[in-house]
């Protein structure tokens, strides 16, 4: 029983992780076209990734978009989670449903809706629409993760701060915030990764010179069969691995997933 279970576990892990190993190797190919095993090993395609202008601009757009929309989602989500948990507001359930709704709507619909009914009629720039779409997607994560850490912080700790002379604002910044810090950090990391990897929302929200990295990769691979996308995929996989390992070390990210 145990042997069978472990064999299955090993096979599944190979199935889940193996492709990343393969893509890293494929990205080190010395040949002209994508193949596995690669024809010789070299760093030329890894180097090439950094030379392709569309990848570079897309990378910076994706990074700024991920950081910006995650921060915005936290700024909106932390007070909301706090109010939902502590102030017992009117229609709390309805509001919770509204702010967590973006998680159940397929991203492609969001992207199309923003393009057709926000960008076109109101004439707002594509980048702003990208920020709105990504932030809306991340607000539910921010609210959930922060709510979860607020539950672990008893309200009497805040009352204790007030009894020692703190205003409500002071008790929030001096007592609540420091104690939900790791939850906020977890929400930031999850938000960053979710936004950075997001495809469906960004799919319709592209314009001249405005393409997020995953979309740029998909456009590129439609017309190019060289190993540069493999090299880039390998780099992204390694970047994610580094973030996950750092997060796991800092705060045990697996608790929040």
């Amino acid at each position, binding site marked *: 029983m145990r042997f069978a279970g472990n064999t299955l576990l090993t096979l599944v892990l190979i199935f889940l992780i193996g492709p990343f190993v393969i893509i890293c190797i494929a990205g080190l190919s010395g040949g002209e076209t994508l193949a596995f095993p690669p024809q010789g090993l070299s760093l030329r395609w890894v180097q090439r990734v950094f030379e392709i202008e569309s990848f570079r601009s897309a990378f910076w757009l994706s990074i700024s978009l991920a950081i910006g929309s995650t921060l915005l989602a936290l700024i909106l989500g932390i007070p909301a989670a706090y109010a939902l948990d502590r102030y017992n507001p009117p229609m709390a359930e309805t509001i919770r449903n509204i702010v967590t709704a973006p998680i159940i709507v397929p991203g492609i619909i969001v992207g199309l809706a923003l393009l057709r009914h926000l960008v076109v009629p109101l004439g707002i720039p594509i980048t702003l629409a990208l920020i709105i779409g990504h932030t809306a997607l991340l607000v539910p994560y921010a609210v959930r993760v922060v709510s979860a850490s607020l539950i672990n912080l008893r309200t009497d700790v805040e009352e204790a701060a*007030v009894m*020692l*002379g703190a205003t409500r604002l002071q008790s929030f910044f001096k*007592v609540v915030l420091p104690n939900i810090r790791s939850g906020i950090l977890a929400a930031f990391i999850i938000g960053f990764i979710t936004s950075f990897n997001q495809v469906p929302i960004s799919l319709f929200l592209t314009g001249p010179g405005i393409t997020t990295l995953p979309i740029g990769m998909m456009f590129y691979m439609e017309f190019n069969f060289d190993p540069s996308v493999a090299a880039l995929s390998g780099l992204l996989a390694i970047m994610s691995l580094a973030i996950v390992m750092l997060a796991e070390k800092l705060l045990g990210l697996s608790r929040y997933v």
Partner: protein
Amino acid sequence: MSDFLKLEKLTLNYGGPTPAVENLDFSMQASELVALLGPSGCGKTTTMRAIAGLMKPASGTIMLDNRDITRVPANKRGVGLVFQSYALFPHLSVFENVAFGLRLARVSSADIKRRVDAVLASVGLSHLADRQPRELSGGQQQRVALARSIVVEPKLLLLDEPLSNLDARLRLEMRSELSRLQDELGITMIYVTHDQAEALALADRIIVMREGRIEQSGTPEDIYERPVSIFVANFMGFENCFELTGGKLKGIAPAGFETGSAAGIAWRPHAVLLGQGAHKGTVVGASYLGQVVEYLLSTPLGDIKAEALASAPRHGMGEEIAFDLPQAGAVLLARR
């Protein structure tokens, strides 16, 4: 001398059909230690939270040191509160927990150091100043909570069941420590508890609460020796309480004992005389308590609890024995 703290017609409401506390009046002098005593749900904690400012009264006023504080926010009242759960700040060291209030008050850091060190020394925690709260035992956390509240020198210190999370030995130790601190500092304190032994040992005055009202208020001796009602008597260890209707209940009141208009009469277990007297009962339970044996008797008057010295001859289960409810140990109760 005017009252230091005065509650007038205080009514507190949690939104339920009946108010948690209704038309409460009481006052206390500076440096007094008053215990609010009662079973859970009697409104004692609610009253304390209203005094602290953590709860808005539906009506009534709270005066502290000749100032109406009914509408003053909790952080500006100069009232300290020690929480039942201690509510230490998990992210701050012991020193920083204690320094919290002083930092908010922008006390200079040299003064903070001096005052925090002094208060930690007085609760015996100087050696733990750099620890995190989670590394402390329950008793130590309790001392930090206490130190944190007294270092800001509140006009009034409220303690919410402060010893209920400690084991029996620590509870005794902390009880005498609280007594000592109160003597030394002379702080005015309100002590909320459901444990009558704690209230008796610590308080200058005890207020017994029941269903949002004051049942009896008086010195520990008053409450212990002269409970005014069956409710208080029960709470103070009078296990044998009887209602008297129309001032008389045939067969219970000792011959020639004038009960007047009393509504009840009560005896502690040790006041019941065993082996002689006009009443008879059957032993249905016996517990050896060390010095004494406590018997539970089934009698025509109802169940009676009686104590006898353990050195006296024992009575077996089912044995029928005579007992007496003597005038000497009886207490008359004015109300039900």
